[in-house]
């Protein structure tokens, strides 16, 4: 049996939900574990472990990544947005409000990732077509809702912002 390697540590600085945090993490640590276990941000979930389900989706510099297979050191010096930074119970982000209103939430395990994926879409493309939304959600699975109400919520949010603007 080979000896057990001692993990090397790396110092990183993240801007998580607008707050700067400096951490020493094992170089092999995954962003998901750092967020959940070190920063107690439990909104991102572990499910498929292979970048398929999207339950662990967070935004790094505005781009959706699967935190389950993204090294924390890769996020060094970058902005990370998790669902906890999207809105609060008293001040929901319009997407959060739309998910609530449209019944787009069932078990909730996919919800954080869905919201962040949707945010990335709307930031890039404020008025997506339904086909755009369906395509964009490739990386986010939901086993409860059948997607219809999630898609409706995202489209309604886009339409609402468009009207407001």
């Amino acid at each position, binding site marked *: *049996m080979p000896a057990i390697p001692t993990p090397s540590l790396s110092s990183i600085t993240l801007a998580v939900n607008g707050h700067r945090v400096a951490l020493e993490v094992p170089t092999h640590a995954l962003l998901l574990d750092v967020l959940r276990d070190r920063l107690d941000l*439990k909104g991102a979930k572990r499910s498929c472990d292979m970048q398929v*389900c999207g339950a662990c989706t967070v935004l790094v510099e505005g781009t959706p990544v699967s935190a389950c297979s993204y090294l924390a050191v890769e996020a060094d010096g970058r902005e990370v947005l998790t669902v906890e930074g999207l809105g609060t119970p008293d001040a929901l982000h319009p997407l959060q409000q739309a998910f*609530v209103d449209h019944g787009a939430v069932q078990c909730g395990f996919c*919800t954080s990732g869905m919201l962040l994926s949707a945010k990335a879409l709307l930031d890039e493309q404020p008025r997506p077509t339904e086909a755009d939304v369906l395509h964009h959600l490739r990386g986010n699975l939901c*086993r*409860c809702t*059948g*997607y219809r109400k999630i898609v409706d919520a995202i489209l309604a949010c886009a339409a609402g912002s468009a009207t407001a603007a």
Partner: protein
Amino acid sequence: MRGGIGDGGVTRTRPFRVVGHSVRRLDAIDKVTGRARYVTDLAQPGMLYAALLRSPHAHARIRSIDVAAARAVPGVHAVVTSADLTWCDPYFGPAFRDRPILSIGVARYEGEPVAAVVAEDEGAGAEALDRIVVDYEPLPAVTTLEEALAPGATLVHTDEPLAGHFADLSTLKPIRGTNVCHQFHLTRGRGVAAFADADLTLEDRYYFPRVQHYSMEPHAAMAAWDEEDGLTVWASTQNPYSVRVELAKMFRVPLSRIRIIVPLLGGGFGGKTYAKLEPITSALARLVRRPVRLAISAQDAFRTVRRCDARVRVRLGLRRDGRLLAAECIADFDVGAYADIGPRIIQKGTYTATGPYRIPNVVLHSQAVYTNTTPGGAFRGFGVPQLAWAVESLLDDAARRLDRDPVDLRRQNLLAHGEEFEPGDTPVDGKFEESLNRAAEAIHWTQATAPDRGRGVAMMMKASIGPTVSEAMVRLHADGSATVLASTVEMGQGARTVLAQIAAEVLAISIERVSVATPDTSITPYDQTTSSSRSTTLMGRAVQEAAEDIREQLLRIAAKAIDAPPAELGLDDGHVVARGTRLAYPALLAERFGMSGGELIGRGIVAPGRSRAPLGGSTPFWEMAVGAVEVHVDEETGAVVVDEYVSVADVGRRINPQQCEGQDEGAVMQGLGHTLLEQMVYDGGQLLNANLVDYRVPRAEDLPGRIRCLFVENGDGAGPFGAKGAGEGSLIPVSPAIGNALARLTGVRFRELPLTPERVWRALRARSKP
């Protein structure tokens, strides 16, 4: 009516205030803000992490396990094999107690837990797993129904099985010396003799594959023992009380000492019924005397439970005029290496195999068969999808042979409202014909399709569970707010919101004033299970009764206070009202207790007991649904495209319309998964696609072009305000509806799922050959 379940419909003189409205889910805000907590979000001080070593062989004798190197890994607290579990009863299972906590001498499927590690962190645990050395002697394995049922087949289990804890399964019928662990048989009328009088007899064989629930939250459990040998388990389970009784037997602890707490579940779909990880997690926590959490990966969920695959032979006999005369269904269900709830699945699934039709002569025979594969268990539909795929397909073939319209032929044979399905069981409590007509109308059945499109329809009926028990309490607090105590598990279906709506309606308070306690066997009363689409009906009735109990108490207090007969009093917006007087609940409570602080406790017990129905208890309600679909096929690739899907479910009354829609939209998409995409593929005994890359579940892009979920609401259900169960039914017609649409479009009858592009393309090519 206390103790039973009768007509829950209430004649109302005023409209519902809360029931029938799409109120916001109680957990919606927590779930969109990331604050919702699941088992893996919880921790205990001093908690350690468990990991499992799984058998790489489908069937193997375990000669020895060397754990020395694993124990030497820094941070490892224990490396455990079955040799370390002699202090408890190491077997569990709801039907047969046939499943060991860890393999005892033999591993019976690839992925069976063989050893466990408890460590300071998951990294040390993984390191230690790599250093456990197991000496396996591979044995011949049976991994398909054909292999397992062949004469002289290798036996998965050679010991006499031990009965589990279900009264209705007390007459388990294994066939000694074979892999058959249970059989179900039912004959109605003259049985097969009636086929002699049929003008048309058709027979065919169908296969329904192994599929995986893939709840996005894989199974997890956390266990802690206290100084007094009390055990607390936080578990992702759909039935905490079944887990409790299992653990009590295994660890010889009184029920009162075991506390099962169930936070939110990230999906269940049946895969989290009955003990799964709770026995091993509890045993490990006991051995290390520290809290232990075990969270498995999605990959290992494929090695924990799945839907039973089934091969089904169906024979239908009809009169020339279209009347169904006789039906015979012979079904083999593959329950995998351990029976789990398989014996009940074969009974329930087969019981309504013949669908919602009047058929005077029926023979049903099914068996549960062990194989060296992942244990088969409960999965949305509970055995019915496997049978409906067969019977509803063959019924369409009968329509074609009789030159009849498939909708029309079904309509002719439907059971009517109030008609007996089976002597001794609940009469039909909904309107199949109304559902079928709604579906046909919505899909424009009588209008011509475009030439490249095909339409199909299918129906189903399903029994819920009986005998069954749900108990609830409602507490009315000093300020007039209320807490519902119910052990119904929130797994996404929205049951807790529905229970709050029911309590709010009866108590005439706003839903914001109602809380629903987290299921906890030391606090929330007994409930048999959150499954079988039963919670709205059974627990809903219990909560309704508990709230009515409080209403009666309030009326009595108020009657005394204002010297009026209780019959003249009513509840309105947090007040008892009578003769122009309005008494607020807090004032009435202060009056009753002589001080502020005391609170009222209401009780509700729903327990429709045993009956002479074939399954031991009458179903509390029938779940009934219709699916109608329009499809086209890409002839170049074989891809089936669903252009439109219409689901109609007879739910009596929708307590929360939006949630009912959500249930059925989700059910249809899950049905599309096993119809078009999903199959667990084994090569020999090796599961090849236990991951979300190789096992493809529906994505947003797989949505039908249009999906509509419609409801029949006649207020005739046995649940609160005339409601009945929903959530499973709409999944069941999906496969046969699509199979029927394909048959009508292409002339090819598909008998095996899933309808992958390759399978469809090959069949279409074979058809077009001269």
